[in-house]
């Protein structure tokens, strides 16, 4: 079974700082493999061990992204493909087009796995776009993936229910973090990962003549929460009553 996993070398959201205007300080920010992408890699490795085959890691990124690629290779993936482009300047739709082109070039694959969203931007839009661009059935929010012969059976974790769906192979799935516990590569695997094949592709070589970006990110700001900072004074009973009245007036208490 040939599986492709799309990973993103993302800004480490835990270390990210914002400037006084609320814009994230992206230059020089710490980076890492997008958190849930490890779940996608792990699931691909499980499919490989169940059905034998090969796992390819595909990413759009700068040479920095090789770090995430190497991590996935250390976990047990077999080869890596890096489409060299700065993800900060390539918008989502173009990223999906580049990934789709790299998948077509290296394919055919039996399965393409992604995570439900990247841990930095978290638009969650690349996986369904890939489904559309490649003309493949797409399972979102997969919490279990099984392949029997030429049929994929996926449990989808929806907000209030679990949906079990089937589709023919090949397919695309985006996984949620509950699907598995990603393995830690051993030290020897980390050292050997650098020896696995890693291919670099230029965007023009796989997607020639693409026009201007169809969408534009106008601004990106950190979420801010304005606090009202109201202090209720008086006896505990009085302050409690005032607090309840204020909360009721805000409409946050059940009627």
């Amino acid at each position, binding site marked *: 079974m040939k599986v492709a996993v799309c990973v993103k070398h993302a800004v480490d959201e835990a270390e990210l700082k914002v400037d006084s205007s609320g814009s994230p300080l992206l230059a020089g920010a710490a980076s890492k493999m997008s958190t849930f992408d490890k779940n996608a890699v792990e699931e691909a490795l499980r499919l490989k061990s169940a059905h034998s085959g090969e796992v390819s890691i595909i990413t759009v990124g700068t040479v920095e992204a090789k*770090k995430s690629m*190497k*991590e996935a290779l*250390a976990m047990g993936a077999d080869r890596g493909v890096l489409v060299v482009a700065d993800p900060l300047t390539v918008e989502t739709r173009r990223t999906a087009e580049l990934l789709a082109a790299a998948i077509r070039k290296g394919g055919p694959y039996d399965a393409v796995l992604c995570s439900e969203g990247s841990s930095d931007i978290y638009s969650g839009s690349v996986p369904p776009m890939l489904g559309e661009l490649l003309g493949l059935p797409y399972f979102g929010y997969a919490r279990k993936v099984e392949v029997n012969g030429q049929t994929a059976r996926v449990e989808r974790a929806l907000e209030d229910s679990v949906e079990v769906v089937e589709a023919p192979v090949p397919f695309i799935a985006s996984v949620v973090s509950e699907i598995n516990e990603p393995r*830690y*590569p*051993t*030290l*020897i695997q*980390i*050292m050997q990962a*650098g020896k696995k094949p890693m291919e670099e592709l230029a965007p023009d070589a796989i997607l020639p003549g693409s026009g201007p970006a169809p969408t534009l990110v106008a601004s990106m700001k950190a979420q801010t929460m304005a606090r009202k900072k109201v202090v209720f004074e008086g006896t505990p009973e009085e302050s409690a009553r005032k607090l309840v009245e204020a909360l009721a007036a805000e409409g946050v208490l059940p009627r």
Partner: protein
Amino acid sequence: MAIYSAEHRRLMEIFHPSGSQEYSEVLTSLGSFMEKEILPVSPRVDAGEAKIAPLRKKLFDQGMCQIPFPEEHGGLGLPFSVYANAIELLGTADASIALSVEIHNAVAEGLNRFASPAQKKKYLPSLLSGKTLASFTLTEPASGSDAATMATVAEKRGKEYVIRGSKMFITNAGEADLYMVFAKTKVGPSCFLVDAPNPGMTFGADLKKLGMKGSRTSEVFFSDCRVPEENLVGAEGKGADYAKEILHGARIIVAALNVGIAQIAYDKSVAYARTRRAFGKPISEFQLIREKIADMKTAVNAGRLLYFYASMVKESGADFSSEASQAKVFSTEMSLGVCDSAIQIQGGYGYTTDELHRHWRDARLLTIGEGTSEVLRMLIARREMARSQ
């Protein structure tokens, strides 16, 4: 903040300009493994609610013990300083486990240096993969650093040695599969490998320690303990020299372990000083607290530089006994001081909360174990006086 921090990475770039990227990848992965699997369990280890064996096993599976050993025996062939740095990280995550691993690897180091090819082939691969656990069995009830007064004897009978006597304060005792035992033959102190179980080798109760609660420490008794003659390591009468050589390397590792303890005590102090308020502001804004923070940070960095430097001298092949002792004396005393300041900064909570004072209790062992500060100062002075002639 990650256990393997940007500061560590920078230091690695300075000491190993060509290999630092690979070494940092290895240590970053090991650090994040420890953060998720070891660090959260550490308070329970101190409280006696969690055993270290399963955690140690997971670390062994990652390849923790393989770092500095040759690839032909199942090692990774990485520099000793990378291994020292890994032990520092483990000292931050859990000092008891670090102590147990450090002793285990000291035996592996001894085998790698002094054992025969057959002994290496038999023992090293399983020690490096962590399938078996080792114990370094030198100290006696009445002799610590003074190896010449060793009372445990080994008598040659036919194709066997028969060991009689007892050993004290032995880390990993009762848990280990292999014991590197030092005993006197007619020629002098000699080094033997004793496989467990052996009907002639028994163990005392787990000693109640002030800290390092997770690591097992007990007495080991030898009563007509028979070992085949091929279990003699190197030559008869050379045991004291081998022990000395093994301990020089181990002292660098103990220094690194203590830097790791000091690092976590420092991190907790900074976090506390930021949030604890007095007189209307965080205590981190008071000059006397800031002085402590400045001194603690400086001390931790100095300790790290010293163990790195001693590692590099060892890697160069030069005599590193003085540098190793300097690193150990400085870092163990430094760590105790930093952990003490951490308790002071955290006040009543520091004194009454296991989670805060356990680092001081852990650090307290190592100005004593593996060469007391006093003996090591003697060694440093002797070596430096000789070097200056």
